């Protein structure tokens, strides 16, 4: 049995909608942005889970809530079996060593006033590794792992002296320097040029393999996810609509939303011009999500009132392939 590193149960994160003073007085109810609305998943040791969906589907919020950078509204987060949902900052600190995050924009996530060596050694210093020799050694090793070779040439540079790809390497090195058990990468390559994307992802994959890290890869690019992830969960308006191994979800997509996403992905093979638009419109507002199935307003396989009224449950249709859609409600393989 492989060890479960991260597990979330019915995780919710709602944000207050800021209203003007008079509106607060007059409006009857408080409004919330239902960014993440009851999701469950787990990641076992050394596995890579992809989290995909359109912008506004709650992917980034999920990543941040798990890292406890945002407080969850309800639900539970377990790290290696330990409930960390309500740990205070002091008790979280030792755990931070084992949980790290790589942000989307390497132009903003690195402090412009710190050198590469400062940036990478900071997490070690915060974690109480103060022996300068050890710090230096570790910085050198991780820089080599991150293919910033020779490390001596990079340690005294400032972020502005690095290219976008090199910056994201530094951010990756910073996340991996303490050999964490769990890393969240929030769209780590979406700001980078296409030609460097593959390189950075390859680097992350090699580090994940080397340190047997569990990895949550947040992305909107299904074509890349296909080559990165073991498992994938598709999110729509704060909920997981389909989940399974990458092959299950891509080759045997069940949910109409997943299918629409798959058809919208441009394919680099010019002999197959198969871009198709099966759904209209854009993602509705998460402040007032549609009742029933949240996708019913855009769904091409809408089957009537049940979609409008009853929220479909995420059910297992076999081999761990989960889907939340009324089309498959009679096909559950598991209770």
């Amino acid at each position, binding site marked *: 049995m492989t060890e479960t590193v991260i597990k979330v149960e019915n995780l919710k994160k709602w944000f207050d909608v800021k209203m003007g003073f008079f509106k607060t007085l007059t409006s009857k109810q408080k409004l919330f942005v239902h960014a993440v609305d009851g999701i469950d998943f787990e990641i076992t040791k050394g596995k890579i889970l992809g989290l995909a969906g359109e912008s506004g589907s709650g992917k980034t919020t999920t990543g941040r809530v798990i890292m406890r950078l945002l407080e969850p509204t309800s639900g539970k987060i377990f790290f290696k079996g330990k409930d960390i949902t309500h740990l205070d900052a002091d008790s979280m600190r030792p755990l931070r060593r084992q949980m790290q995050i790589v942000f989307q924009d390497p132009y903003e996530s690195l402090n412009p006033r710190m050198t590469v060596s400062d940036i990478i050694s900071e997490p070690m210093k915060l974690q109480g590794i103060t022996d300068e020799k050890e710090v230096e050694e570790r910085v050198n090793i991780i820089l080599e792992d991150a293919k910033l070779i020779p490390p001596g040439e990079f340690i005294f540079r400032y972020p502005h002296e690095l290219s976008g790809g090199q910056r994201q390497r530094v951010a990756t090195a910073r996340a991996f320097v303490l050999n964490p058990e769990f890393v969240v990468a929030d769209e780590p390559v979406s700001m980078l040029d296409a030609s460097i994307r593959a390189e950075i992802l390859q680097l992350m994959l090699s580090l994940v393999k080397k340190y047997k890290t569990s990895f949550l890869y947040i992305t909107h690019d299904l074509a890349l996810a296909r080559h990165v992830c073991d498992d994938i969960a598709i999110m729509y308006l704060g909920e997981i609509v389909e989940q399974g191994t990458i092959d299950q979800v891509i080759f045997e997509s069940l949910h109409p939303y997943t299918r629409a996403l798959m058809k919208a992905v441009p394919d680099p093979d*010019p002999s197959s011009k198969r871009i198709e638009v099966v759904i209209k419109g854009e993602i509705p507002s998460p402040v007032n999500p549609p009742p029933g199935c949240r996708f019913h307003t855009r769904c091409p396989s809408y089957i009537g009132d049940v979609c409008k009224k009853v929220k479909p449950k995420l059910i297992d249709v076999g081999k761990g392939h989960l889907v939340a859609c009324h089309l498959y409600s009679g096909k559950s393989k598991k209770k």
Partner: protein
Amino acid sequence: MPLLDVQNLTAYYTIKRGSVKAVENVSFSLEEGEAMGLAGESGCGKTTVALSLLGILPVNGKIVRGKILLKDTDITKLSEKELREKIRWNAVSLIFQGAMNAMNPMYSVEDQIVEAIKTHDSSITKKKAKERIAKLFEMVGLEPERARNYPHEYSGGMRQRAMIAMALACNPSILIADEPGTALDVIVQAQVLKLMTELRKRLNLAMIMISHDLSIISETCDKLAIMYAGKLVELGDVLTMFKKPVHPYTQGLIAAFPGIYTPKQEMKALPGSPPNLLNPPKGCRFNPRCPYVMDICKKKTPELKEVSKGHYVACYLAKK
């Protein structure tokens, strides 16, 4: 005769430290109704080519050499007034990068398009312009009543549609789209790309699609031109380019785009980064990153040669 014929276009930007050789000896042509993709890494000169075609390079940018022939007129020789009245929007129009920020938040979308129409066609009345906007909005799939809204009342996809409507306002024959898909979600992006393809066929528009995402180009264009560090390195029809790329850079770029249905694979990447264009490498500009580099590559710049019909490559490895 082609609709657009760009010959040896060379454009530099002057900065304190010297001149940035952003575009050097770029030549291509475009027939009526033809769509060409222009791809390459950031900083390779894609946008500079687009700006040159409209004569709107920033003040420190200059077309140093070359011709841009639009039917018979050489755009590079025209005065500012002629450019405004005859070329921009009436012949060539541009959908700017980042639809989110390309509109003025202080004016309604309608006012902005009216302004664009009146600038390039001074004879038109405001009423006529508004009627035209209503028609354009229908064409791009927006409700005409929404024209009076402000940009912030639009979603990303709607703004991109409004930008397309604006670009088509004066019936241009060439539409340039600079990264039309970035900042949009996959599904919305697919909607916008489909709309552009439909409009192109309906209006017989020639199109230049600038993007670093090769899969977008492969879905929408007939031809593909690859730029590297200011130079055109390979040009050909989309099918040939994807199936039999010749230039090592094109090969690397294509390998960096795994398809979604292809078997799970190790992603290949091009090592290194593009050169500094203040002082580009001698010979072939790709030589420091090229896996097949030879002595001659470091000394002499390879010319763009035709390897098969309509397929041009600038590389010493290319054989007829």
